[in-house]
């Protein structure tokens, strides 16, 4: 990942960022932990490839980052990550162009790590996670966006009872009314394993609505509760996984976690229906369904 800036170069370019530590990288984005003023924050550094050398144009990348920041600024829930103190700026690091801004730093574990570690949540924990994700999604819906990349790697479990789970990364969030269709060539609009079937269609933008996120929430909840993905099998090729997502019925959560309440299992299973119209019409409908479950 040569686009990830060298930590020393980053420190030289931004001496105001102290105690830099590399956290993670993916896509064109790298995340570092740093002290910004007196706060520990997650500094996001986004590589902007030179024009015509990559399939994403500079304008699209800049627009996407601005969209993410604008969306986060509008959201008012502790179930979503919040912005840090570093405003969006362009910066040259080691002769390359980057954008840089910060979010709050969340000291926790991703759901992905927990799943890989064999964590087996009880009913109460699955319900807390479901409510957190749905409240985050309800807020994203309120501001007229869809997230498009809800997955275990983008959910952080914190050791704070008042803020147990936080959804991250609105990097590919889509504003339902007004976002230009990007020219990004052929890439999937999300992370394949968590993408709703309709997003595999060439005309997916016509079908795009909050129910695509409801699907991803369902897959995330299923995988966290069961320890396995409802459709994909370990080690299989991408084509087979896509076929399963498009054609095959998913496993039933109740078969894998019979001790969980039937209503909860059925609710999560319903999120993973292939037809959008069979899923909950919005996050609130699922929150209502979970009402009273403990």
């Amino acid at each position: 990942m040569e686009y990830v800036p060298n930590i020393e170069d980053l420190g030289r370019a931004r001496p105001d960022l102290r105690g830099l530590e590399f956290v993670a990288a993916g896509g064109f984005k790298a995340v570092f932990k740093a002290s910004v003023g007196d706060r520990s924050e997650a500094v996001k550094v986004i590589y902007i490839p030179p024009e015509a050398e990559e399939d994403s144009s500079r304008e699209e990348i800049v627009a996407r980052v601005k969209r993410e920041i604008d969306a986060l600024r509008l959201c008012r829930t502790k179930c979503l990550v919040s912005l840090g103190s570093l405003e969006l700026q362009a910066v040259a690091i080691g002769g390359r162009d980057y954008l840089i801004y910060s979010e709050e730093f969340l000291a926790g574990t991703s759901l992905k790590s927990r799943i890989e570690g064999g964590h087996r949540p009880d009913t109460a924990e699955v319900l807390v996670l479901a409510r957190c994700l749905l409240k985050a999604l309800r807020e994203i819906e309120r501001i007229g966006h869809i997230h498009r990349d809800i997955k275990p790697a983008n959910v952080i479990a914190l050791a704070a009872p008042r803020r147990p789970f936080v959804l991250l990364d609105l990097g590919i969030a889509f504003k339902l009314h007004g976002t230009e269709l990007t020219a990004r060539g052929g890439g999937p609009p999300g992370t394949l394993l968590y993408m709703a079937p309709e997003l595999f269609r060439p005309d997916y933008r016509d079908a795009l609505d909050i129910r695509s996120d409801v699907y991803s929430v369902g897959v995330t909840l299923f995988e966290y509760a069961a320890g396995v993905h409802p459709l994909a099998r370990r080690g299989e090729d991408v084509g087979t996984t896509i076929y399963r997502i498009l054609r095959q019925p998913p496993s039933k959560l109740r078969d894998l976690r019979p001790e969980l309440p039937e209503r909860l299992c059925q609710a999560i299973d319903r999120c993973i229906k292939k037809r959008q119209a069979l899923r909950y019409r919005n996050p609130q409908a699922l929150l209502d369904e979970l009402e009273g479950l403990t």
Partner: protein
Amino acid sequence: MTVLAQHGHQPTDKITRGLKENVISGVIFSARCASPEKARTLISEARLVGADAEILLDPEFYATRLIGTPNCQLGNLEGWPYFRAQRRRDLVKTEAVERVLKSAREAVSGFDVSAHIAPNVYIPQSFDSMEAGIALNFIEQTKPIFAGSRKLVYATLAVDRRALLSPEDFRSFLNDLTGLENPPDGFYVLIGGGPLAERSDLAQSEVMDANVIGGWMLLNFILSLNGFRVVNGFTDVLTPFLAAAGGQACSTGWWSNLRVFSMGRYVKPESGGGQLPTIRYLSKLLLNHIKITERYDYGVLVPGIVNRLSYDGVYDNGSPGRTEEALQMWEALTSLTQEAVSGNVENDLAALRERVTQAGVAYTQLRSYGVTAGYEITTEYLDQLDGAIDAFKRLAEL
């Protein structure tokens, strides 16, 4: 699930007796069969008999597409202020749709209905059509326009059977329908498919097709899953199937053209009428309407063919009248649905499949006694009903 009467010509005392004797839970009046004044009176009379009855009025706006065609028979429809010919290219404009909805709302204002049924166009062939777009626009504007009426409002969804046979367009339409931001409280669903022969019943109509019925069930399932009340018109023996899929009300009338919906009902038949149809008996076991003579003959051979419900007495004592024929049908449909539908979709589908099997067994028994006339034709609908359960399960991802 409730069984309603589908109002039509020559209602006589069928509806009032049906309400009084509790074999129906309500009625869907027809604007075609009653002028605005008459409809107001009919609704008030029905309300007097059934204070809690579900009383609705179908504005039948979808029949405007036949205005001006030769041999159209629109009855009282042209006396309703909203019932005016509209050019399709005008109806793509929201203002035109709003005008129709407002006119319909004003026409029924003050009617003592349980909920209003809003007008809509007919989707003739495909959900990927201009009419489907217009229909969605009607549905989207329904709630805001009727908001001041202080009653629930149901959008009409009148669709030709052929539209249900194109899965991709159907899927897209359902996504759009359930994604509307300000939807109505419910839907009045009509699936159109002409009878194959004059005065034939649903069992021998174009609707009796596994994929059509499966699609109709899916429509009920998805709409109810999304929190809408679903009232189906012209359902006849499909009533328990639609109820199992989530439909809350089904409506059936006394003539064969009130048991299966067809746009052909707004066109005069070439034969020009003639003899009244034979009085029939709805056998719960056979899931079919049989002739009175068949009831007597078959009932001796396979006793289960006779329902043994309260209106059987009328048939036991000779030839019933038209009113008793209707009351018997509603009683049998209500009983059949109550027995087969519990609210658990998987269990109900299994129960319905068993019902279809038992109907087939009964026909097989009849054949073993030498009753072979038209066996294949008579039992074809059972194959379609059986296939409909499979089609629905596949479509609904059950």
